[in-house]
């Protein structure tokens, strides 16, 4: 995981995200904000999924899928490196 890059992302409580290296901006939903904050704190995919199940009413399977989806989208947006897991 490219932690430095993720840590530099400016994420507001409203879900507005600014990438200071590229100038690109994004709007994230509540669960994506949760996941990105967890990534910024250095958590791994499994840990994030566990946190999601305790924070939101989702099953472990659903949480895993959500984190995978979010990572995929973050990768596509160039916000995390291609090898991030």
């Amino acid at each position, binding site marked *: 995981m490219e932690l430095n890059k993720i840590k530099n992302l*400016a994420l507001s409580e409203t879900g507005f995200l*600014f990438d*200071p*290296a*590229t*100038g*690109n901006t994004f709007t994230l939903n509540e669960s994506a904000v949760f996941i990105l904050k967890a990534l910024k704190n250095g958590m791994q995919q499994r840990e994030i999924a566990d946190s999601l199940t305790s924070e939101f009413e989702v099953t472990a399977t659903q949480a895993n899928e959500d984190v995978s989806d979010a990572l995929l989208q973050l990768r596509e947006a160039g916000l995390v490196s291609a090898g991030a897991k």
Partner: protein
Amino acid sequence: MTKTTVCVTGLNAADSPAPGLAVLRSLHESGLGYRHIGISYGVLDAGNYMSGLVSACYLTPYPNTGPDALLSRIAEINKTEKIDVILPTLDSELDNYIKIEAELRYLGIKLLLPLKDSLALRDKPTLAEKIPTDIIKTPDTVRISDVSALRDAADKLGFPLLVKGQYYEAYAAYSPEEAVGWFYKLASQWGVPVIAQNMIAGEEMNVAGLAKRGKLYGAVAMKKLFLTDKGKAWSGVTIRNEKILEMTRRLIQFLNWDGGFELEFIVENKTQEIYLIEMNPRFPAWIYLATAAGINMPAMHVRLALGEHVEPKTEYEVGKVFIRHARDEIVPMAAMESLSTTGMIAHAAPSSPNPFSQREKGRPKTPLPLGEGQGVRVARASVFAQG
């Protein structure tokens, strides 16, 4: 104590605005207390009438009339204004100012200008040919002087390719027919060579900077958020991209650059490789964004020209956004008359510290009587002569 008088050029503020107004706005907010004079080429340049930014404006001959006419006009203006520094903001002026720099110094006027060789080296095709790739990469670039050379270049570069004028304008060509069309348009407007360049799909990022003898004194990177149909930034945001800033430092050192500049980069989508598209030898029109982000490069430029000690500044606020807008200035006919008939306009002292928030105040005062002005008559300046 007499105020330092700073003269700024490029007061046109059309859809592709010159940098002069942004430079003046930065100087105005620097707190250095300079007196600002404008030099313009046309009666309808909006900056002539912005009394909150300039104490007076003078018309000068177009750059293509050569250095002698420019020197003669500035010497005339200097009798009244006692100019300390001139800050040119247009590409097309630089050759003339470089040629008369020694004479201007003799008149007590200081400039911070690139060396003639540095200016020649930053020229679009020359830069691509001469700069080592370990300093900066540039897209494949070919000089074109006739249509047959264009066909050869197209074979080498493939389509789509960019066809660029040697000074301004660039068009994307997706077929040989389109490329030929753009070649003729650009050759007739800007002369030959026309430049053919490999078109890289990616995100554009620009850097505004200031240097003296190859040392970087300030640099701010900006990502364009919204473009006009001419590809000019109408909105942008400050960003921090260490690779681009390091490339900027290396390039400026290589060129031994003096003065303001703008670098246009593109980050290729496919590879994330960074290419330098071109270098402009003056501050960009968005230079006020850099000032707002914390590095007032026009003010540093003037201080460097005056020979003062200036500390380089590299930290600035990231995420600062600018959105350009156009507004209609209401100008009394008497003000246009003064500029048209005497070649100059003098303004009352600005009553507002911020001309952009209270433009109604500080209108131009009554112009000089006809024939008795401090400026000289400039034949092409008459708006009444246009029929």
